[in-house]
Structure formats: structure tokens, C-alpha cells
């Protein structure tokens, strides 16, 4: 498997076949005596903004740290939860009850539901 080609930036699908963001970053783990391996998939937060070059990256990361949900901390999925890697990556997470959908829920409850005719 090729980390950047086959994993990074791919669509994540949760256990209920719902979209739940993209693979915005990957955390590797290397311990003495073992091969380095992927430990965690990161979704959203400063993991994404840090990929932008120069001052744009630094500035947007600082903004997310200060004002973002969970101070810009990404949602983490342990590699052991990965079910399949294909054109999309399916993971054993129920995104609706997890922090991955926190901003989506916030928009739904605070904005969409207040518009007449929403439900």
C-alpha cells in the first residue's frame, strides 16, 4: 500500500455507510524492535491547515487553534478500526454519535433546524 496515493485524502465511510470526512492526516508510530506502522487516521482540525504552505498554513492553523472546535484537535481513528481500503476507506466508527460529526451537528441544531420547514 502506498500511503499518499492510496490513503491520504481519501473519502472516509463510517460503519453505517455514511460519509464522515476525509483522511486529512496519518500518524505513524515507530518503536524500537518493530517496523514503523500507521497508528492513526486524523480527520479535520489543524492536521489539514498545517498542510498549507507558508504563512497561509501558519495563520489558518493559529485561527483553528483559537476558535476551532476542540481547539483544532483532529478526530482520531485508530488503524485497528479500518474495515476496508478501496476508492473509499471504510472504518468501524459510528460517526453520528462521535466527535467526527460535531460541527455538522452544530450546524444542524443551531442553524438548519431554526429555518422554518426544516423538519
Amino acid at each position: 500500500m502506498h500511503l499518499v496515493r492510496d490513503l491520504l485524502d481519501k473519502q472516509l465511510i463510517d460503519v453505517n455507510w455514511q460519509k464522515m470526512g476525509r483522511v486529512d492526516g496519518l500518524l505513524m508510530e515507530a518503536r524500537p524492535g518493530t517496523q514503523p506502522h500507521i497508528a492513526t487516521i486524523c480527520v479535520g482540525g489543524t492536521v489539514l491547515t498545517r498542510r498549507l504552505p507558508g504563512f497561509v498554513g501558519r495563520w489558518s492553523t493559529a485561527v483553528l487553534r483559537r476558535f476551532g472546535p476542540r481547539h483544532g484537535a483532529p478526530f482520531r481513528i485508530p488503524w485497528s478500526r479500518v474495515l476496508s481500503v478501496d476508492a473509499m476507506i471504510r472504518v468501524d466508527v459510528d460517526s453520528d454519535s462521535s466527535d467526527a460529526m460535531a460541527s455538522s451537528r452544530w450546524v444542524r441544531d443551531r442553524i438548519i433546524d431554526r429555518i422554518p420547514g426544516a423538519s
Partner: protein
Amino acid sequence: MKQKILQLTLGVVTSIGGFLEVGSIATSAQAGASFAYQLIWPVVLGTIVLIFLVEMSGRLAAASKLTVSGAMRDRFGFDYFVVPLVTLSVVIYLVLAAEVGGAAFALQLVTGISYRWWAVPVALLVWLILWAGPFSAVERWVPLVGLVTVVFLVGALELNLDWGALAHGLIPTMPSHDGLHYWFLVVNILGATIAPYLMYFYSSGAVEGKWDESYIGINRVIATIGMSFGALLAVAVLVVCARVFEPAGMRMEGYDQIALMLTGALGSWGFYLFAASLFVGCLGACLEIALAVAYMTAQGLGWRWGQDEEPRKVPRFVLVYTVLLALAPWLIVLGVSPLQVTSMSMALTAATLPVAIIPFIVLMNDPVYVGKHTNGWIGNCVVLFTIVMACILAVVTIPLQLLGGG
């Protein structure tokens, strides 16, 4: 098969948003008034390129089940994706403002109440249609109502046309006067025709319509017929204006002049049908643009999206088009001239074209995405030609806007 033929409406909707919106109507009218039939060739050139790019967007969606924006994020990563996303969002804000202005102006023609008062109601109407209607409704009603725009063709055929001169306009020629204005219009016509949002919209529509590989054949027909339909009407606008305004030596200074283009051929009916066409075309373009930005953002960031979903199931997707439409009318309300916004937005579309087109050459040749349906050599030549052309346009558009705009 019947199901597939019905998808022709997707092509026609895309086309209405590409050719019968305020940008194309305005630039075709200016071109006809200033240079008679001489500027038909950029419309035709833009259309051929657009047919190829739209066909590729549909083929990508059918072969990979991915939209253009989704595949762009997959293949090029977030740091590239952010460039077309940000440039498109900025440019599209102006384009949307121009479309809202066009629809508002159509209402001014009919009611006599200033377009500035109509901008907010127009944006609200667009939002309501998106909020309440599923994709299939947009896809079915826009082409049906859009048939009113055929009036331009009727108008053109009512006049005694010089077919020889018309055919001559298909061949690029050097202008005999106003060289800068000529090239300014060439760039604007190409910018108004080859709009990247059309490709994001079309491929998302194909994914919403659950296209699979069996659609690849019909996709060609849909792209060709759909885009040609719009192009034919854009040429008709140009021809009518060439016949009506060019002999009088009139330059198009504002929409109120363009509005009179059909009165010669069709009398007062012509005036109202022009207003109706402008309104419908601009409204269709507003729907398409607002959706295209919401699609692109949601797909690139992996959010849930879909115009067929209930709004509260795709909250962030709905939020994008809601914010965009909430911001859209204010330039017009403040009294900025709709024709000026239009002209600026067309030039900027041309300037940002390369970042949107370059990914096509990679994606459409990568078997990981399109499997065995990769581009043939003709397709690749057209994309390469378009990239070169887009780069030239990007460099010359701003200087031409400043020098040749008036």
C-alpha cells in the same frame, strides 16, 4: 433506455447555466453590436472545448462514481485542491452577483421598479427553490421553463440573414477597428463559455443520478446536444444584435439597450420575451452556481452532500449555498452596475481557468479513476490545447479588462 434519454435534461440545464446566463447574453450582444458576425468563432471554439470537458466530467463520474472535485482532492491532495476551491469561490461570488443582477434587471424591465430592489427577492427565490426542491425538480423544470429562450432563435430567423457573412464569422479574422475591444470580447466570450462550475455541476448531477459505466455512451450525446443547444442560442443573440445594433453603430452601454434587441423583429412581445428569457436564464445559472460551490466544498472536505437529501441530513452542504446566496445580492443592492459586474466576473473566470483545467489531463488518463475509459488522443489534444489557451487567457485577461473594457 428511457431513463437514460431523460438525463438529457442534465445536459440542457448545464447548458442554460452556461450559455443563457447574463454573461453570455451580455457578451454576445456586445460582440454582435460592435463587430457584426465577426465574433461567432470564439463562441464556436468555446463550445467545442466545453463539449469535450463536460463529456470528460460525465465520463469520470460514470466510470469512477467520483465527481470532478472529489477526484481532484483524491488525486492532488488538499494543498492543491484548496487553490481551485478558493479562486472559484471568490470568482463565483462575482458571477453569482452578476446573475442576480441579470434576473433583477429582467424584473425591472417588466415592473419599472429598480433592479436594486429586486436583488434580495431574487436571491431569496433561488434559495427557496434549493431548500424545497430535490435535484430532479431543478433538472426537469429549468429546461422546460428555459424553452422560452428559444425566442432568440425565432428573433434571429425573423430577420433577413446574410448566411454567407454568418459562415464567414466562423473563421477567425483580424478586426478592422477597435482591436483592443475585439480581443477583450474574445476573452470574455471564452470566459463566459468555458466556466469551470459547469463541470463541477454536471459531474455532481451525474453522481446524483447514479450513473454507472453504461452511461458513457449516452453521456457523449448529452454533452454534445446540451452544449450545442445553448451555443446555438448564444449565436442567435449575437446575430440579432449584429442585425439590429451594428448598422446603427451602437455600442452596448447597459442592459436597457440590450433589452431592445428583439423589439424590431417581434414588437412589444419581443421586449417581454427578452425579459422572460433573461430572468429564466439567470435564475437557472444562480441555481447551478450556488449548487456547484456547495458540491465542490462538501465533496472536497468529505462532508455529506446531495440536493436530493433532506436539508437537515446534509447541514454543512446546505450551509454553503445558504451563506453564498445571503451574500450574493449586496453588490447589486449597493448600485454597482450589473453589466460591469458581469464583465469583471467573466474576465476573472478566464483568469482562473488553468487551475481548473489542468487536473483533467491527469485524471482522465489515470486508470485508477477511469479504468479503461481513459482519454483518446483527440481528447488529450483538446485538453492540452485548452490548457495552453487558458494560460494565455489568464495572462491577458486583466490588462485587456482595463484597456479594452469600455
